[in-house]
């Protein structure tokens, strides 16, 4: 080597030492940040979450439920920025409390789906053989039933079986629990398949063989080795799942089988606005736009996550 080349090589090595390679997490975050739509989505989501969590500080639940026949079906005004509904309740306040429930349903339903789906997928992918066959046949059986049909059947079956309950300072209709369960029970199948596919490929890798060689228990291997490495598709699927769950809730409520009034959700506010479509458009516009914005935001974020966590991208260094 000539002196110049040696110098260049030395400087390059120095640079590398000074700037340590980024972890996959940091790489992912960088890519995510670059995704403009994802950042817009995050901003939007933060705004919506603030709306439903800080809103109660301004409007009490009593106020949201207060009926007043003299101002029923009033268009937006200073006193009622989003107008009032058929019994004179303030729509702005109702969207706040309704939003709490819609978002809650979305998140918890995905939680249910995640738990069941990951369990099924992990066991199936890791153990293979008979367990895999049985679980996968069961999953496929569930997938074979059109989702909306299953939703309707389960909602009807479980509807009305759970009474009203009070928690966290609010009164909830039992149908909230039912809907969370129903949406969760109809969405876990996709997650199970994704998790299983991941497990199948990862379990052949060397670090798993190594872990087994040193005598780690199955549970440790699953929880501490394989699962963390398959987080990426699970996170993306779960994020997009929340959007799907919110839309499912709107759908089921529109058919009349969702959360029952007087508990408000964005979905059943749309259902109540159904007969007022052209005469009182504010009744469906505001809950509707909130659903669209939330789902949109989640879709943007999910899109960004998918790009950011794409294993092929992570494999390349910065």
């Amino acid at each position, binding site marked *: 080597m000539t002196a110049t080349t040696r110098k260049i090589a030395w400087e390059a090595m120095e640079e590398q030492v000074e700037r340590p390679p980024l972890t996959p997490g940091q790489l992912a975050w960088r890519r995510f940040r670059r995704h403009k739509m994802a950042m817009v989505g995050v901003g939007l989501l933060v705004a919506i979450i603030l709306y439903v969590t800080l809103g109660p500080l301004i409007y009490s639940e009593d106020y949201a439920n207060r009926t007043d026949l003299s101002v029923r079906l009033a268009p937006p005004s200073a006193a009622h920025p989003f107008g009032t509904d058929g019994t004179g309740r303030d729509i702005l306040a109702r969207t706040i409390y309704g939003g709490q429930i819609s978002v809650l349903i979305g998140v918890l339903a995905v939680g249910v789906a995640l738990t069941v789906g990951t369990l099924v997928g992990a066991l199936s992918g890791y153990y293979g053989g008979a367990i895999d066959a049985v679980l996968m046949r069961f999953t496929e059986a569930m997938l074979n039933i059109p989702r909306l049909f299953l939703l309707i059947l389960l909602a009807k079956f479980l509807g*009305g079986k759970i009474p009203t309950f009070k928690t966290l300072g609010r009164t909830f209709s039992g149908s909230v629990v039912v809907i969370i369960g129903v949406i969760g029970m109809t969405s876990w199948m996709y997650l199970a398949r994704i998790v299983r596919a991941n497990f199948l490929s990862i379990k052949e890798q060397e670090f798993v063989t190594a872990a087994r060689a040193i005598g780690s228990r199955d549970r440790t291997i699953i929880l501490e080795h394989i699962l963390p490495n398959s987080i990426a598709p699970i996170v993306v699927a779960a994020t997009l799942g929340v959007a799907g769950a919110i839309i499912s809730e709107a759908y089921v409520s529109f058919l009349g089988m969702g959360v*029952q009034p007087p508990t408000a959700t964005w979905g059943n506010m749309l259902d109540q606005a159904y007969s007022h*479509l052209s005469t009182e458009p504010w009744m469906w516009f505001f809950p509707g736009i909130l659903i669209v914005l939330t789902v949109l935001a989640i879709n943007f974020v999910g899109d960004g996550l998918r790009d950011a966590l794409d294993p092929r991208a992570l494999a390349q260094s910065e």
Partner: protein
Amino acid sequence: MRRTWFYALLSMAVVAAFVLTACGPAETPVAEEPVEEPTEAPAEEPTEEPAEEPTEEPTEEPAAEPKIVTMTFFEEPDSLNTMYSGMWFAGLAIDIFNPGLWYFDDNLEPSLEMAAEFPTADNGLISEDGTTITVPLREEAQWSDGEPVTADDFIFTYEMILDPANTVQSTWPYDEYVESVEASDDHTLVLNFTEPFAPWATTIFQFVMPEHVLRPVFEEEGTLDNAAWNRTPEVVNGAFRVREWQSASHIIYEANDNYWRGRPVLDEIHILIVPDAEAQMAAIENGDTDIGIFLSYADVPVIEEMEDVELTTVLSGYNESWFFNLNTEENAADAGHPALQDVEVRQAIAYAVDFDAICEELLYGKTYPPSTKWEETPYDYPDANLYKYDPDMANQLLDEAGWVDSNDNGTRDKDGVELVLTYATTQGREVREQTQVIAQQYLQDVGIGIEIQNASYDVFWNSYGEGGPIATGQFDIAQWSDSPDFPDPNEDQWLCSEIPTEDEPEGNNWYGICDEELDEMVRAQAVEVDPNRRIELFHDIGRILTDNVYWLGVWHDNDLWTRNMRTQNIKISGADPFWNCFEWDVSE
């Protein structure tokens, strides 16, 4: 990679062909079906052979436009044979082609159809003891195929209803009250009752089946359950006959020249099945339908803006009511809140809620709180206590009854029991949901807590034996709309004997009301033959129900109909809505 497209399309074509060959032409010759085939090219819409109605010939001079009235139904009738259907919409569809002895017109007077005379005590057609009723039949009445309508048709109908081989909706009242049905000659029908049965005029022979057509069917198949006549009655005795019934889509009627009054004015009547309320509103506005049926109060402002459409309210005998759970621990059903046993508490509840405001605001002033269940009929008690909104009176009564807010939590209590009531109704009707939250507000304002616990329609109505929530007493206040055997005032749900028990879970008295005086009156009216005395009995019944607040009127539940102004002579009756379809007309 052309194979990509090829296999994809092959799969689509295979499935389409497989499925479509399975759907051949429909079996009933009168109904029809689109038959189409997708093309192979990737980007075209499937073409279809125009499937023209095979029996479509112009029924009058080619030059004139046929006179047609169109209407929209929310639900499709399950059958066009009255004995197989309890659906209200089926009743409407059947009114058009299958009258019985008489209809009740828009003034609730009998409009004679197959009967030639209306039996009363004065014209001697009702016997002294009230157990024998003779009905002379109209001699000129015939079936659309030319056969005369005779007493045999009615006797056949009676036999078929009671025959266990037929899965009829209900055998009432024939099984309990009719001893026999005879023909003293071809055109005279004799009805023998086991005891005087006051509601006979509205419940017996409201339809009739053609014996000459259906007896052979019954003898061959052993049952009428699958008779083609139930779906497409080709032989009818009404103003129109059914030309076509396409499931989930429409029913088409055409004029019957052999109707005893002569050919009706209209040429055709079309019924469209439109399950969606918004879609019906759009159709009303667009003029795609001439008659709108069973609208909701929320639609009223929209309809009033439409230029060619007239809104009418029709008395149907229904009243939206509150019922209270007066069951005690001794009854099989769950006991109601102890506060409800006290009449003062019930009166306080009545005073606490402003039902007038609810009717004014939620129902656009189109109706009002009824005074009794027989509002707008001669059986209504005119001096009933209306419990006009008076929260001060409510508070006073509650205080007097001993219910005060001793622990300052906003709700009254007594002896450690909070005054919180469960309020139940059916899910899915907007105006009910709205009424609930408003009433909840009013009651909250006088210190009565309310928990809303609704159930879906089918669960709500389950009987005691099936664990229905209302029948088993899981409510304190329940709200629904019902009517007596309109236009007859008879109802039996107030009788002590109707309280369901473990041994006899069939009872209708879900409220646990057992009042001796009331019981006596209700029994008496059911066998009372003298109409004036009967009215007096109902005045007493109304008085007892309202003074004791066993029942509370929320709104007088008339039916809302719309009519396009281009139609004429449409007079909707609350009992038999389409009774005068033979004189309906349209102007163009």
